[in-house]
């Protein structure tokens, strides 16, 4: 079937099959930032934004993206670099394989959460697994990022 959707700001028409996942389609279109770590919606590596909401592309049929606005890290380079600089300042990107998924979810969280209390942040990001960092460095980076430009620490 043919679907039509916006990918990183560009309208595209694409042939897809009934069972193709959005993850496969995105990699096919050269969005190599999107990674897969588990195939079972447990790790968060394949997180992308569909109409501004975090979605796990490994378990999201490509056909469902028809008519939607899809953003991967390729389409959020400025934001990635900004939050990424906080991550790198902690050394918390480590292998970097889970970074794109985490960053997409942090960007979604920033828009969605009213309060950046530590417990809220941890709960929001709980689906983003990381095997290198033990999460503490990521948390330090998220805190510094969310309170950037402020004198006080919000969480």
């Amino acid at each position, binding site marked *: 079937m043919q679907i039509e959707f916006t990918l990183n700001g560009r309208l595209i028409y694409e042939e897809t099959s009934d069972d193709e996942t959005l993850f496969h389609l995105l990699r096919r279109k050269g969005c*190599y*930032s*999107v*990674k897969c*770590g*588990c*195939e*079972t919606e*447990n*790790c968060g*590596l394949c997180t992308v934004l569909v109409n501004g909401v975090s979605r796990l592309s490994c378990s999201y049929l490509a056909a469902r993206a028809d008519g939607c606005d899809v953003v*991967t*890290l*390729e389409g959020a*380079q400025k934001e*990635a*670099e900004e*939050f*990424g*600089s906080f*991550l*790198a*300042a*902690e*050394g*918390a*990107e*480590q*292998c*970097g*394989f*889970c*970074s*794109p998924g985490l*960053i997409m979810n942090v960007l979604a969280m920033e828009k969605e959460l009213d309060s950046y209390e530590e417990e809220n942040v*941890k*709960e929001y*990001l*709980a*689906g*983003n*697994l*990381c*095997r*290198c*960092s*033990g*999460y*503490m*460095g*990521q*948390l330090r980076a998220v805190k510094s990022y969310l309170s950037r430009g402020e004198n006080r620490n919000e969480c």
Partner: protein
Amino acid sequence: MNVKMRTVNTSVQKKDAKALVTGKPVFTDDLAPGDCLIVKVLRSPHAHALIGQIDTEKANKVDGIVCILTYQDVPNKRFTMAGQTYPEPSPYDRLILDQRMRFVGDAAAIVAGETEEAVDHAMRLIKVDYEVLEPVLDFRKAKDHKVLIHPEDNWESLCPVGADNRRNLCACGGEEHGDVNELLEQCDYVVEQVYHTKANQQAMMETFRAYSYLDAYGRLNMVASTQVTFHVRRILAHALDIPKSRIRVIKPRIGGGFGAKQTVVAEVYPAIVTMKTGRAAKIIYSRYESQIASSPRHEMEIRVRVGADKNGILQAIDVYTLSNTGAYGEHGPTTVGLSGHKSIPLYRTPRAFRFAYDVVYTNCMSAGAYRGYGATQGIFAVESAINELAEKIGMDKVKIRELNMVREGDIMPAYYGETLNSCALDRCMARAKEMMEWDRKYPSVDMGNGKVRGVGVAMAMQGSAISGVDVASVELRLNDDGFYTLMIGASDMGTGCDTTLAQVASDCLECDLDQIVVHGTDTDVSPYDSGSYASSTMYLTGMAVVKACGEMRDKILDKGAEYLSCEKDTLEFDGSRVWQPAGGLEISLKDIGNKVMCSNNNMLSAGASHTSPVSPPPFMVGMAEVEVDKETGEAELIDYVAVVDCGTTINPNLARIQTEGGLAQGIGMALYEDITYTDKGQMIQNSFMQYKLPSRLDVGNIRVEFESSYEPTGPFGAKSIGEIVINTPSPAIADAIASAVGARVRELPITAEKVYREIK
């Protein structure tokens, strides 16, 4: 060379950070050519079986299928997938495809096609006739079992490790120092217990993967997510029975390894497809495959006997380890050694020790190398036993360690007789005790709501490289405008060694970090390095960098003397210029770099290898605070305090992240991550739905500090950090739970059910 630390011991960012956080295509699958054949492995549904016929006729007719290989199509030459220095201690017990299936998931056929759909379709159409055999699934019964896992005549053990395929033995051995039995009989207090650890998965986020192609010279090029590029080259040569000169191995960015990628798990499959078809080929393991057919930790059952006199002074330790290597022997003979060699030497006082072991084959998934490499298992057992001994004596668990722990200057009979030149274990303990407020919290605090908080403690050590075996090499070149290229053979798998090794070079050459370009690793280009494992990278490769920089400085002075037409011994090099303090002559490094590109006979290149006769241990103390629900047995980790002595921290941020990450993995091992089999030998935890990795909600609060000693044989006083960090959570958390509710769980993971059953 006497240089100051400017870049070393600072938290510079990783050189690849920006590419990683902006999601650039730098990993194996991002780089694979678009026309790669897709390679998959058809896997055995039986734990033990012999293949009769394989009917591939229908599968071969599937549109897009290019090649299907069976055991009849591969060299009948056994090899090991273990990434170790040749001759490998791991037995040569594998073929690329074998007629005998030894675990559920063993490779029965290789299928390659133009698309994943075609390959999946073809896999369903292959008909394999299996003669199902009785499996050996209980590792306690495997030794001398009537069923042999490896009855084949061409099974071979290259090293004297006590292996015997006619007894299902991958290795056995032992050593004794002093009279253990007699001393234990005289002890006032003796603990004898058995501890059981599981075959945990490294679960790095990037699963196993590799692709291969033939280059312009017809050579096999292999791009692999590996920690051991040079071992991959040798192992592929053995497996494919082709000369090593025909193989090139390249490592791009790696999405984590933790030892998993110290075994050549996936590379042989695309390699043989490329050799057979001449086509580029790639394999990407699913998480399912990475769970059921990979290289996890060796399951071990460890019996500890330890005794003390009436004052709590240890008299003797006796450790026997039974290790389950599974269907193949990768890292079997070596991991087991660490269960004794990296646990018993934590204590200086015992006048006798004994360490014995058996490593057995079973029809479970083959084990491999996982961060800690046997030390993790041994330390869980010995540290738990010490805690039980303290309880028996009625002594504080910090106190018993203060009385008995190893100290700087000690000679360690259970650690190859090495002298301990750097050790801040005592300071680590004192600081951890302060951070945890141990005296206030020990042993437990009743919260009054059915929950009790308890604290627990454990110590740990590891090594720094394999003494007398591992080799690290680097090459250093001076380029125009005076920047350097540092070629390393060590594999940065996310840990940051490309950056930390550049930090060492930067200080040795007194230049900015940006002046050092790091290249690694490509077996056609990089100097030989055994690889990034055994906590060797900073300790060994770092020293090779120090040596090479020394040689480079000397060569720069030679050139300076030539260009300034004066005696070399009147000159100095300060990192940016060669100058003559007495006469005022000088030439900049930039000018030297540019001048050598015209009319020059001496290449400004320096190379150095380094090996070490000793393996200085890093040390660590971990303390856990847990809250246990008395009604359900559920334990929540509240706080984890860790104080580490890794020598000088070359990059404090990266050392901290290593520590926090290793602790989280250790917490997973302690509380969540289990590997179990059905009675037919099928592994149950075959996805992240069943194999529970700790999320950020499960790790509590982790607090890390460093108490550095100075290791005289390491670069700038550094030892190692990568592995030791996973060793304390299991014993410390088990002990905290015991302190809270009296439930001593001796089998990992410590689930609520096990705690509940032990609550008195």
